């Protein structure tokens, strides 16, 4: 179901949907906690604050579960050996734990909604939930702002690499696969004798160049291609893949290129010359 996946990734609106949807649970759970505290302070409010807190809690759970669906789709897009995959796993697990705690808190308070004050037990469970949620939300933010997850993803129309291919040349060219296995505009992320590079298939040729954009180190294996240029998914720096020359900023320096060719229907990677 690629069409459904693309919708859940927010490709039509050029922005992922999970980070937009999480506004609601992230606001509603702390709001519920504040209303619990208010119920102890405002003695003349009757049961209204306790009930308002309960409604806020339920709405947080509902919107949180909804947002999780979109988050899981974004999770599957992260390359398996990306350092952010671990952060994303922690983000996912901690959020599920937090939702579980909020559900427990709702269960604990359900029988005493007529009381003027929230009891201690559900409040403490909610408080632990908010602490966990704050930390996992922070991790979610670092996925975006530190590791650029889903940044510029909508521009890439071809399949992205889901791991890094390890190549050890021992001084000789290595065939990494059939030319036909890689469509025009697709990439392989490779580690050639320790040099991390993107192998990109363009019309009639393959090119290999350093994976990391020299601006803020965005992943060029997740970039887009037009003519002989690669565009970085993060800030749009462009480079000529034949020479590595920077053709548009913000990057200021050129890419390191590596020798690669198509021969006898195979993609060959040569040992990287000394930098």
């Amino acid at each position, binding site marked *: 179901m690629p069409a459904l996946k693309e919708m859940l990734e927010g490709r039509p609106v050029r922005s992922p949907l999970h980070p937009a949807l999480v506004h609601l649970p992230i606001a509603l759970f702390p709001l519920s906690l504040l209303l619990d505290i208010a119920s102890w302070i405002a003695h003349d409010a009757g049961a209204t604050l306790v009930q308002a807190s309960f409604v806020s809690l339920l709405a947080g759970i509902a919107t949180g579960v909804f947002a999780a669906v979109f988050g899981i789709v974004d999770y599957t897009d992260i390359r398996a050996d990306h350092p952010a995959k671990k952060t994303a796993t922690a983000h996912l697990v901690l959020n599920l734990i937090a939702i579980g705690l909020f559900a427990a808190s709702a269960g604990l308070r359900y029988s005493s909604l007529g009381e003027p004050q929230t009891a201690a037990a559900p409040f403490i469970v909610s408080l632990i939930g908010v602490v966990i949620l704050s930390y996992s939300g922070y991790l979610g*933010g670092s996925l975006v702002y530190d590791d650029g997850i889903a940044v510029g993803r909508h521009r890439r129309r071809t399949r992205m690499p889901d791991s890094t291919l390890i190549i050890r040349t021992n001084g000789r060219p290595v065939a990494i696969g059939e030319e036909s296995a890689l469509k025009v505009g697709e990439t392989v992320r490779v580690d050639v004798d320790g040099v991390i590079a993107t192998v990109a298939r363009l019309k009639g040729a393959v090119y290999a160049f350093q994976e990391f954009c020299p601006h803020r180190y965005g992943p060029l294996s997740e970039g887009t291609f037009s003519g002989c240029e690669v565009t970085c998914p993060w800030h749009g720096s462009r480079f000529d893949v034949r020479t590595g020359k920077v053709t548009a900023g913000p990057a200021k320096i050129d890419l390191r290129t590596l020798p690669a060719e198509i021969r006898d229907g195979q993609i060959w990677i040569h040992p990287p010359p000394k*930098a």
Partner: protein
Amino acid sequence: MKPMDILQGKWLGHPLHPAIVHVPVGTWIMALVLDLVAHGRTVSQTVPDLALACVILGLAGALLAVPAGIADWAPIKKERPAWKLGLYHLVLNLLGALVWAANLGLRWKALATAEPVTTAVLVTSIVGAALIVVGGYLGSLMVFDQGTSVGRQSKKKWRAIAVRGGANVPEPKH
């Protein structure tokens, strides 16, 4: 640490503005939902009370979000698309915050009456939420389409990874 660094969230290791905006965006959308539930119906006092709490908490969040957002926007070069996006994002969200401030005034007056969600309250909720949703969407385009604030605090970490991976990298700034 300079005020700019504080507002950009350097101390936190995470841009401050996108973390704070969860509060106004989330609470104001919730307030609109509650108003739609309560308008023209007899509902428990809980509904308008919760909506009031949402609007107040949202305004408090917005007060913090605006300076932090301006600090993220200021370093963007004027010729980059993110600069204009940021300007529209700022204007729409400021208008949205003003509409919610007006909404709070109207809501306060009607709160203890038989009709706590008047048409004026509902209309300002709808307009305020619409402004915030459109303004917020522009903010998400800044990040996910233009990369605003992306890689700013992780430059060192990724530079080290790139160097290990044999990449050409610029000389570090001192």
